[in-house]
């Protein structure tokens, strides 16, 4: 196959490209330039986007003996991932930019361009497995190394695009194995630190990034009865489930810690309350993507509702091509933020994913006062 290896400059994508070469594919390395004004050197734990990262990717391609190109995806990235990030926060939701990048850039713009130029597949350093199912359809599964699994951020690509994806690291036992392999292959990125931060937030200061982009929008922090218990500079800075950084002047009457229960940007309100009011019973997701058939109501599965979150037992309440509602009452799920991805699994296999639109808490179901959605 003609394979385009997306090379960020990190160790994972370099080893993934190497494995694609070993598998006998005709591999070309491509580094996506995602910023018009890249920094010279990488800072903190950002994983890409600096000129140093582009140079690291180029060196890795040299070592592998494959052609290497830089493709400018900066406008696409800005218009989809960064713009979505800001508008979602502005709307009181909590976006996952890696999901949006996979949806709009890596497995969309990049993949489309690759296919148009004659490539058969795009290879990345993601930790996930692609398995051929009994009917020949390709299935997306969790990685062998559960700690590194990235199926959660990949599920958005759906089955058609999965057919053109190659994840050579899906079977590795651990990141240490990847690093050891990089050393053995003479790849200079072997010891490069892992990336955690959002790549386009220069200093890792997401709050500062949002404040600069969205401006100050001061408002009140209120309890569930609407009583003002504090103030804030912008509701967008808060995420459902958050406890730290509320700096509430008045303690709760019962003295127990309070958490963000809801973010209401239009009213410039942040609603806080006790932890148990974050206990989520139902989660509804929109913009659903299914691998295979839509699961029937009543089906048992597990769900993950945030990156690096736990796999919790769930039951499908309703599902159609475009949306899904699951019951997670037994999962001990707390504080699901709208905007995050809801990914449904059957064992290790991804059934589908949706973007969290609304939740109902146990308290909502019990008829407690709340304008509960779902």
């Amino acid at each position, binding site marked *: 196959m003609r394979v385009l290896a997306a090379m960020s400059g990190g160790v994972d994508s370099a080893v993934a490209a190497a494995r694609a070469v070993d598998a006998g594919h005709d591999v070309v390395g491509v580094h996506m*330039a995602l910023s018009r004004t*890249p920094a010279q050197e990488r800072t903190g734990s950002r994983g890409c986007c600096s000129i140093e990262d*582009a140079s690291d990717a180029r060196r890795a391609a040299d070592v592998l003996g494959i052609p290497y190109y*830089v493709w400018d995806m900066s*406008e696409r990235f800005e218009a989809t991932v960064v713009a979505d990030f800001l508008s979602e926060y502005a709307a009181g939701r909590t976006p996952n930019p890696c999901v949006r990048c996979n949806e709009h850039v890596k497995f969309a*713009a990049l993949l489309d361009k690759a296919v148009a130029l004659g490539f058969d597949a795009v290879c990345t350093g993601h930790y996930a497995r692609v398995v051929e199912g009994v009917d020949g359809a390709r299935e997306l599964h969790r990685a062998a190394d559960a700690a590194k699994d990235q199926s959660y951020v990949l599920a958005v690509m759906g089955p058609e695009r999965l057919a053109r994806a190659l994840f050579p690291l899906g079977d590795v036992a651990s990141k240490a194995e990847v690093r050891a392999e990089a050393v053995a292959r003479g790849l200079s990125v072997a010891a490069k630190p892992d990336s955690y931060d959002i790549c386009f937030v220069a200093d890792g200061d997401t709050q500062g990034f949002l404040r600069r982009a969205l401006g100050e929008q001061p408002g009140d922090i209120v309890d569930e009865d609407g009583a003002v218990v504090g103030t804030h500079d912008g509701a967008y800075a808060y995420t459902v489930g958050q406890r730290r950084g509320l700096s509430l002047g008045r303690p709760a009457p019962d003295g127990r810690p309070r958490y963000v229960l809801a973010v209401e940007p239009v009213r410039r309100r942040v609603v806080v309350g006790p932890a148990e009011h974050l206990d989520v019973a139902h989660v509804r997701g929109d913009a659903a993507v299914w691998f295979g058939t839509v699961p029937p109501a009543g089906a048992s599965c597990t769900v993950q509702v945030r990156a690096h979150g736990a796999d919790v037992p769930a039951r499908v309440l309703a599902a159609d091509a475009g949306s899904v509602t699951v019951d997670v009452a037994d999962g001990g799920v707390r504080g699901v933020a709208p905007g995050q991805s809801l990914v449904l699994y059957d064992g290790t296999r991804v059934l589908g994913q949706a973007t969290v639109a609304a939740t109902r808490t146990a308290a909502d179901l019990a008829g407690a006062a709340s304008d509960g959605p779902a």
Partner: protein
Amino acid sequence: MSAPRTRAVYLDHAATTSMRPAALAALTAGLARTGNPSSLHTAGRAARRTVEEAREQIAAALGARPSEVVWTAGGTEADNLAVKGLFWARRTQDPSRRRVVVSAVEHHAVLDPAFWLAEHAGAELALLPVDGEGRVELDALRAELEEHGDAVALVSVMWANNEVGTLQPLEEVVGLAHRYGVPVHADAVQAVGQVPVDLRASGVDALTVSGHKVGGPGATGALLARRGLDLTPVLHGGGQERGVRSGTLDPALLAAFAAAVDEAVVTREEHAARVGTLRDDLVRRVLQAVPGATLRGPADATHRLPGNAHLTFAGCEGDSLLYLLDAAGVEASTGSACQAGVPRPSHVLLAMGVGEDDARGALRFSFGATSTADDVDAVVDVLPGAVERARAAGLSMAVGA
């Protein structure tokens, strides 16, 4: 897509070209010798002799006196020395001379020093516009000099453009500038060996040449600076090159550089006719075979470098074309340098009035000593399919659903 060829078709001679056997012989012969040309002992004197013979050879080839040759480590350094050195020297003589006048289509080695001077050294920058073929607007230069003649430190207009191959009207530029006592620098990096280049005959005050563009070694270059021209040094140190450019000289490199320039100039006429025929053939056949192909630069071939063909392909991304051609064994260029690793539309094409989308689909084919008619056949063979593919891949600008 065609299978990769056994021999790559190299049509990027404007980027760099293969070393001439005469240069290779001079280089390898010199590499084993020891001796610093600044040393006074026997070994030093032998090295000095090689350097001076190279100086005489290059001066003779380009219409300069030996004392007018300032060795540098390449074209970029020579351009920096010309722009900064002239600006500083002129401003020191007359503080009111702060204007730096350069054409909008200069190589970055001229443009960026000019921008840097404006940003950091109090210069005022005047960019000369060009016409649709990339030729400097002489009326704009005339107007600039009429208005600011007493305040202009230097004019820099390249001999021939590196992207679209346009030959600049240097005779007129020199005539106008000298009327106001303003020195003219010309970057002749692409011109040497393709068109006649002669410092004295041109009237130009300073002229940049590069080694690797004419079949010499990399990291060699020279600024030919007219006798009496005051240049403030950019590199300070041991005082080599009469204090204008410090740094130990390498006899082997310079001998090879001079040998390459000499041969390029001696064989110029025959070479230009040969590559000009290949180029004309390529342009004619590509325009016929590829819908949406547009020739950029002068329509009249006598106004452009004989080895240069520059085309844009509507709806294509230049780097898609580059990849597809490379995969098919054809090595060409988009013509413009990457900025910060990200390909940008060429400032040359934009200055010529080409729209940003059209400018993205640019390809430069540049011919050299090793080019053959087979190379042209290969391009005509693979280019139509590559353009079709690249067009399907579209412009990465486009943000659709």
